[in-house]
């Protein structure tokens, strides 16, 4: 059977499959950034962390033969990047956005430098679970072939949503993000909390990178990310710093990203390149639609430098 046999149904199916496949890095990066931003800091360097994570995971997987060790190594590398960002930002007069941009370039550059020898060899893939076994249509099977990291990401979103209200750590992150003064009055050190929050955010972004190189697209190249780390940061803002919102927005982006290839596969030959731009156009539209010139963003952490 081929695409023409299920006709135009192939498009929504491909979008669904794409949403699940493409969204995973968005989920991890945006959840990580949500944690960091809830603590009152913004880390734009996650793009660099994502690329470096992808390279690290791929390299470790090639050398050890275990993709899971690769994921672990990527998380570790991401943690280091996050902690570095958090550590620099504690000094007076340091701007978190500027440091983020520097780390973005630094992370990518470092990844290209160390990653050169790993462009050729191939690494083992991360396992996926076939939820489409009940169907004999290959498109359905392909769409429902779900990677384990996607499921972990979904569970993590749910967990963070719960944890922000029901755990001590969650409340502390929110306190620090909303009012440094209140945090200090409680005897908390905002810098320490932000350091840890940025570290965890970096680790999650590293895992997002591991997914890129070890599952989809599944190889290490220098153009592996194409700005996904930056888009995920924007995504956090219109998800209103809500982990469940991040998850939903990541799916939406994944789906939009799959629109171009899906249309191409059902034989639309003209203008499908335009649909490759769908996620970016979507970003613009949602940003414009959800903001207002006379009102500040609802739900923004009070200490965040971009919304202050």
């Amino acid at each position, binding site marked *: 059977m081929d695409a023409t046999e299920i006709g135009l149904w192939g498009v929504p199916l491909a979008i669904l499959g794409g949403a699940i496949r493409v969204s995973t890095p968005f989920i991890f990066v945006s959840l990580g950034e949500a944690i960091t931003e809830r603590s009152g800091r913004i880390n734009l360097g996650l793009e660099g962390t994502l690329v470096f994570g992808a390279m690290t995971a791929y390299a470790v997987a090639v050398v050890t033969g275990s993709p899971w060790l690769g994921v672990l190594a990527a998380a570790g590398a991401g943690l280091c990047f996050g902690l570095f960002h958090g550590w620099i930002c504690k000094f007076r007069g340091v701007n978190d956005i500027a440091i983020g941009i520097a780390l973005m370039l630094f992370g990518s550059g470092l990844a290209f430098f160390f990653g050169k020898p790993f462009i050729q060899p191939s690494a083992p893939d991360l396992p996926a679970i076939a939820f489409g076994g009940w169907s004999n249509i290959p498109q359905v099977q392909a769409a429902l072939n779900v990677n384990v990291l996607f499921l972990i990401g979904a569970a993590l979103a749910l967990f963070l949503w719960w944890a922000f*209200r*029901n*755990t*001590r*750590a969650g*409340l*502390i992150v*929110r*306190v620090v993000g*909303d*009012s440094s*003064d*209140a945090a200090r*009055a*409680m*005897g908390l050190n905002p810098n320490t909390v932000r350091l840890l929050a940025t570290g965890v955010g970096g680790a999650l972004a590293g895992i997002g990178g591991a997914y890129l190189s070890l599952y989809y697209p599944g190889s290490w190249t220098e153009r592996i990310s194409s700005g996904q780390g930056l888009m995920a940061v924007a995504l956090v803002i219109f998800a209103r710093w809500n982990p469940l919102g991040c998850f939903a927005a990541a799916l939406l982006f994944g789906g939009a990203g799959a629109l171009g290839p899906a249309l191409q596969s059902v034989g639309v030959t003209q203008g499908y390149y335009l649909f490759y731009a769908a996620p970016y156009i979507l970003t613009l539209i949602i940003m414009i639609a959800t903001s*207002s010139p*006379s*009102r*500040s963003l609802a*739900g923004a*952490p*009070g200490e965040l430098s971009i919304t202050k």
Partner: protein
Amino acid sequence: MSGTIVKKAVGVETIGMTMRFGAFTALDDVSIKVPAGSFHALLGENGAGKSTLVKCMMGFYRPTAGDMLVDAREVAIASPKDASALGLGMVYQHFTLVPSLTGAENLVISREKVPGVIDWRKERAALAQFMQRMPFKLPLDVKVAELAAGEKQKLEIVKQLYLGRSFLVLDEPTSVLTPGEAQEVLGLVRDMTRTGDLTVLMISHKFHEVTAFADDITVLRKGRLTGTGKVSELSHKQMAAMMIGDQPIAALDSRAPVPAGARQVLTVKSLKAPDRTGLKSIDIGELDVKSGEIVGIAGISGNGQKEFLEVLAGQRARNAGDVLVKGSPYGASRSEARTLNVRFIPEEPLRNACAPRMTVAENMAFRTFDLNEAGKPVNWIRMSAIRDYAARLVEQFKVKTASLASPISSLSGGNVQRAVLARELTGEVDLLIVSNPCFGLDFSAVAEIRARIMKARNAGAAVLLMSEDLDELLELSDRIFVMSDGALVYETPIAQASVQTIGEHMAGHH
């Protein structure tokens, strides 16, 4: 759980408390005694050492010399943690609650020991039980950002009690409350001292509050103890004398009657503008201010006064309505302000009316730097003219500054306000718009600034005065409006004004 046991009130004493910052002595040998279960007021001007004393007591500062006694036993307080372990707590002037958390979340997270995973069902039950013993009723499931100022202040106090504190320092606790709310909060706190559950040390400026609620007072001036005694045995005049010593206080000009045919200077008609959340809007039906009168606008902060002022100052776009000055439409452009003689003194002048890092001279020349003697625009600016002009005003308005070339941010609050007044009140003034001109200033600066405003009025300026200080409005205004929920809800001529009625309208009870 520490929160459920309210300890009995403790008494606190300081002996010879001294604090030096380098060569500067902020606090000089101050001994005060606050017996258990008493309501003690600490009076003094800005910079008199009140907050230094309190910070030494609470462990924020380490005093250069002096001892603390709690329940007549000597204690060492090296940090705020030590203070809270002894049951000493402080309610700050600004709120320390986290706005995006609910009341319950705020209370639980401020506790010393919080479990890793919070069992909300259990916590809610414990909180409900705790709140039953509190004199305050508060909604705990609402985000703190959505609470009214009075409720926030109550929650701050409740938080301290929840944490098991039995000696509370209240730092100007009523500065953000309506008269009604202030009465209620202080009344409830005083009841708790009467039953012996709490000891209170309140920092205050307001004599009438001190007289109504406190048992004893201590007065500081320039870091020294200048008086102490029972409230029942002291008059306001005696308290004021202890506070300010023998420095002269500028007297208010007597109020010249508003001439019958005074022309209308400012007219505002059905003005609509969005407020800062964008969810509500302000709606000023009709407001006019005549030459030679002061029209006061009262209201709790956050009821649209700031937005109204921003519209008048051209900082906020309006959706509909007219603003006329002397009959011609006014859009707050520089040329309109110049030809119509409109002057503006916003609140927090350093932030809203100055460029903090530019010099005193430059800041004072903002209105005139690009004009020559004949009032025509010039292309080349002469620094010497700016300096001469500023030197004249500095002398005339008694601005204390190290030099004309120092940045204006190095001046004290009172002197920044004097500099801004000098700039705005020099030349012809037909309309003067003023907002909270005396916030945070000391006695003599307040008296002087009010006298200047009154002088401008008597010289024929129309003055629109917005203030959160009702006493100030009652002292200066000819007519008072109350702004509540974005609209002017009440108007009264000064002769018939009553604090009670105005307070009720401020709280929106009509």
